[in-house]
């Protein structure tokens, strides 16, 4: 088991190094001359040369890559051109809001997706199956930014039931100040027993979370359906059927557990995908997280910030996949032996 983990971690580190090199290529090699971007179009040749030296562009390429790697490892992810802050600290400030949003979205996705997938598998080929499959495929075909705008139009504009701006109501926050522990308003207000803030932050979370949940819900429902159907065809299930167990028991007891295994592996993939989708959604909801940071940075041509967010999410994705791999190997011994 330890050999498996060590092997996987080593592979993961190799991939992370590759990821950093790739982002280096995107950030430094492709745009042509970063020094010109740094000093602007009216710089003198002397200023340009000095900028090139400051940015380390006069050094050979392998040396630049090593410097870049060393910088990433030691926490120097560059300075954001827009906010003038170190990118890493910007990321740290904005990440909790996005994590709160994506976690809420994933929760909703699992809450809806798993039962729908089970329903679909139970009545495979009949009306409920077709219905669920349609809903699931609409979920994965949905342009998230459009869903966000449409939901705002319906629930805020027309029905006036849900708020659409920010993580909580600023008036409520002024009246009931929130202690920041995790910087996630829903969690913090729950922990502190600050009920007005809890209500405010929860209602503000609903619409964005639904938007973020659409794609994962579709994926999870389809995955559960496929996995359960595959399990139902396996020998051990046929055995239980031959033994005379009622279909209901077979479904709930023998088919369910093995069927949920692939769902775990898909969660990491879908979490990262949802995190990237926040780029499209947060600005619409005035949500102050990584997504709006990335969208703003893109608008402002703030390359260090965009690369910083890219690196952050890519590394997170590698780590998440690693964790899922190890958990799966723990649960299913056959994986370790491969």
């Amino acid at each position, binding site marked *: 088991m330890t050999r498996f983990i060590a092997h996987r971690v080593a592979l993961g580190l190799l*991939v992370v190094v590759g*990821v950093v090199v790739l982002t280096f290529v995107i950030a430094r090699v492709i745009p042509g001359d970063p020094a010109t971007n740094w000093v602007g179009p009216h710089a003198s040749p002397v200023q340009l040369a000095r900028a090139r030296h400051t940015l380390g562009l006069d050094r050979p390429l392998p040396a630049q890559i090593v410097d870049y790697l060393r910088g990433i490892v030691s926490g120097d992810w560059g300075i954001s051109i827009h906010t003038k802050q170190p990118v890493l600290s910007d990321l740290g400030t904005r990440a909790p809001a996005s994590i709160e949003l994506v976690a809420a979205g994933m929760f909703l996705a699992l809450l809806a997706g798993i039962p729908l997938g089970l329903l679909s598998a139970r009545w*495979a080929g009949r009306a409920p199956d077709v219905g669920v*499959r349609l809903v699931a*495929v609409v979920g994965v075909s949905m342009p998230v*930014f459009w869903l966000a705008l449409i939901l705002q139009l319906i629930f805020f504009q027309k029905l006036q039931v849900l708020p659409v701006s920010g993580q909580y109501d600023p008036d409520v926050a002024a009246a009931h100040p929130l202690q920041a522990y995790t910087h996630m308003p829903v969690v913090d207000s729950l922990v502190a027993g600050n009920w007005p803030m809890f209500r405010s932050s929860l209602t503000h979370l609903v619409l964005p979370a639904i938007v973020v949940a659409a794609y994962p819900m579709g994926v999870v429902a389809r995955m559960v359906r496929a996995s359960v159907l595959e399990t139902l065809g396996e020998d051990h299930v046929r055995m239980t059927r031959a033994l005379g167990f009622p279909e209901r028991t077979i479904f709930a007891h023998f088919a369910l557990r093995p069927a949920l295994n692939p769902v775990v592996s898909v969660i990491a*993939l879908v979490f990262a995908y949802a995190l990237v989708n926040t*780029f499209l959604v947060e600005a619409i909801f005035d949500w102050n997280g990584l997504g709006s940071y990335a969208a703003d940075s*893109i608008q402002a041509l703030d390359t260090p910030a*965009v690369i910083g967010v890219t690196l952050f999410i890519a590394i997170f994705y590698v780590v998440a996949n690693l964790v899922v791999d190890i958990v799966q190997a723990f649960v299913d011994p056959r994986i370790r032996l491969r």
Partner: protein
Amino acid sequence: MRGNPLLVSGLVIATFFLLVAVFAPLLAPYPADAGSATHPLSSFLPPSWHHPFGTDDVGRDLFSRVIYGTRISLTIAAVVIAFSCVVGIPLGIVAGYFGGIVDDVLMRVTDVFLAFPALLLALALASVLTPSVANATLAIALTWWPWYARLARGQAVSIAGRPYIESCRALGLGSFRILLRHVLPNSVTPVIVQASLDVGGVILTAAALSFLGLGAQDPTPEWGLLVSQGEPYFTTQWWLVTFPGLAILVAALAFNLVGDGLRDRLDPRRVIAR
């Protein structure tokens, strides 16, 4: 043939979009509006008989623009998938068949590309290039091919060990001939399934890039760009956002349904228990 309502509807709608893309100049009531024509006096008109989708902030007919947008989205999808196949499949089958260091290098390189969620890498690439449809297509294509290489490689690995390949070698057939005549045709099925599933994905990715300002620029009527252009006005002029977004949804939906149907038919491991 089993009547699969989802697959059939998907095929019908997908064919409809293809026809719209091909016959756009004949179908659009105001073809010039899809370009740089402006009619400031008829701006912000709500949907009507003359303008089924209404008009935008400079009076352009949205219906015509959405129709021409079909061409752009489907072209991007075709180019990206063609690129991914042309680059990915040969690399994949060579790596899978020969194994060894070639295979290791390809696996590690694709590992790195696949370590990024799809949209993210395309976004990062597009953000350092000048925004345009061509550059957005390039960015998406460069992030899309690794998965095809992986698929082809997986198939090639399993085929390379088969007895009939061994007998080909025993007969003295050269590697290139074996690859072309035997490995390639048998590796293609999962790639076809993946390609049909990916059309929807590329459409969504391209729309997302344009929405963020990294793809098509005005006056190109790309669907994602149309939604972002309509966003400032959407509380009052709701049609500016609704119809282009609906086009994205229905197009992606149709091609995803087709892809699902193809996968259900072509993947032998899909045993539906009864």
